[in-house]
């Protein structure tokens, strides 16, 4: 067995171990990492920056804990950006755990000294409408009457009693919607049953698996911009200068990708070097 044949026969557990090392070691290192901001991420940031203070924005957290490593940093950074811009925020989830994830993000974001000083009040500056079953039909219902789609908020309070919601009827009252999505229902449904029906402005943050599938909506203008996976989250942290976990995680991401790329190259080389020689 020659060198290349030995390489092809390497135990997959060796590769797992190397990937694990590449992921774990960077946690204990602190080296600068250059993150270039892509146009779709910049577009989301620019749009939010242009919104006048007091504008109503909505964030729909359509994901659950398994996707949190990719999407939670996005939710945190986006909420922070909204609050620092003095925007009024409506939070909801088309996934049962989505609005819970939003509450976890709120807890983290509210620890920021600047936001603490703003003394943001629930019901006045932000609300969490919670989850309601119905997938895309919830979006359609919200297009005509948000109060009908979400009669009560996350805590069971009637939303008609919340000052922030009293003058909100449908998407006409909302300046910008941001969807953080890990699958169905998610960005597809927000575009198809929301944007193309009710003509509001939508930005999205997706898991990396979904990102290439929804990116045609950016080119077509159906999405203002897109944050793709952990990298998209890190880019948003870079452009907004609100550094959270995504930027730190990109160190591990970079190292682990280097290992994967190395093994793809070596595996292909070994395959071509041993082609016709294998029994």
């Amino acid at each position: 067995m020659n060198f290349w044949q030995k390489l092809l026969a390497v135990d997959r557990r060796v590769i797992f171990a190397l990937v694990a090392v590449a992921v774990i070691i960077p946690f204990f290192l602190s080296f600068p990492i250059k993150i270039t901001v892509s146009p779709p991420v910049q577009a989301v940031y620019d749009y939010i920056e242009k919104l006048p203070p007091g504008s109503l924005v909505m964030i729909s957290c359509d994901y659950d804990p398994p996707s949190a490593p990719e999407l939670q940093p996005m939710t945190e950074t986006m909420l922070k950006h909204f609050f620092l811009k003095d925007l009024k925020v409506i939070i909801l989830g088309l996934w049962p755990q989505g609005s819970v994830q939003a509450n976890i993000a709120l807890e983290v974001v509210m620890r920021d000294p600047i936001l603490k000083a703003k003394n943001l009040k629930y019901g006045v500056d932000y609300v969490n409408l919670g989850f309601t079953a119905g997938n895309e039909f919830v979006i359609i219902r919200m297009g005509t009457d948000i109060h009908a789609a979400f009669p009560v908020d996350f805590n069971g309070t009637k939303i008609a009693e919340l000052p922030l919601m009293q003058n909100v009827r449908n998407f006409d009252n909302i300046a910008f919607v941001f969807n953080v999505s890990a699958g169905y229902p998610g960005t597809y449904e927000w575009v198809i049953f929301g944007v193309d029906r009710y003509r509001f402005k939508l930005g999205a943050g997706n898991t990396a698996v979904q990102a290439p599938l929804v990116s045609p909506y950016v080119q077509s203008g159906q999405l203002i911009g897109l944050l793709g996976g952990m990298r998209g989250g890190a880019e948003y942290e870079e452009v907004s200068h609100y550094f959270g976990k995504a930027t730190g995680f990109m160190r591990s991401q970079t190292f682990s990708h280097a290992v994967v790329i190395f093994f793809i190259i070596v595996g292909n080389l070994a395959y071509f070097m041993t082609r016709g020689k294998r029994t």
Partner: protein
Amino acid sequence: MDANSFFNIGNLIAGILTIGIVSFLYKDNPLYKFCEALFVGISAGYWFVTIIFTVILPKLYDKLISQEYVYLVGGAFGVLMLLRLVPKISWLSNWALAFVVGSTAGVNLIGYLQSNGMNQVKNTILPLWTGAWGSSIGNLIIVVGTFCGLVYFFFSKEHKGVFGGLAKTGILFLMVTFGAAFGYTVMSRMSLLIGRMDFVFGTWMGLIR
């Protein structure tokens, strides 16, 4: 290591279960089997409770209590769906299924046709010269890629000559698309691993500052 976070009951359970699941990468073992079974069981239980509290109670029971009897129609369809479990009258569930399929198809047909069909077609009709090299090349790639990709999926004519060349170019574009999707998938899976390792070494063991 931070003993407080390590022995915190929630962290301890999550940490042990994480190690149990990851241990499958070495080889199948009883701890992994236990964690897998636990996950499946808890997921089923969670969804059962979620559906009761987010669908059956607020969208049926509460409505009936407030005398909105039109919701009985939905409730009746729900019961019909459950009749699938009774072999002799399982055919009745087809009515409920027909309603779901029909209404979903009706809602989706127009939406998908407009958003994924018409809008996407409209946005591939692009000027090949915009006055700037960068955007012109971008537009050219979109137009050529879409055209050749469609040619590849045209099977009524043999892929030979110029037509075959266009189809091969289409394959190239498809390969690039698959490559990009694979790259993004790797990034996504790595992100999940990073999240778990961050929990194990950070939240649980308190080793990351």
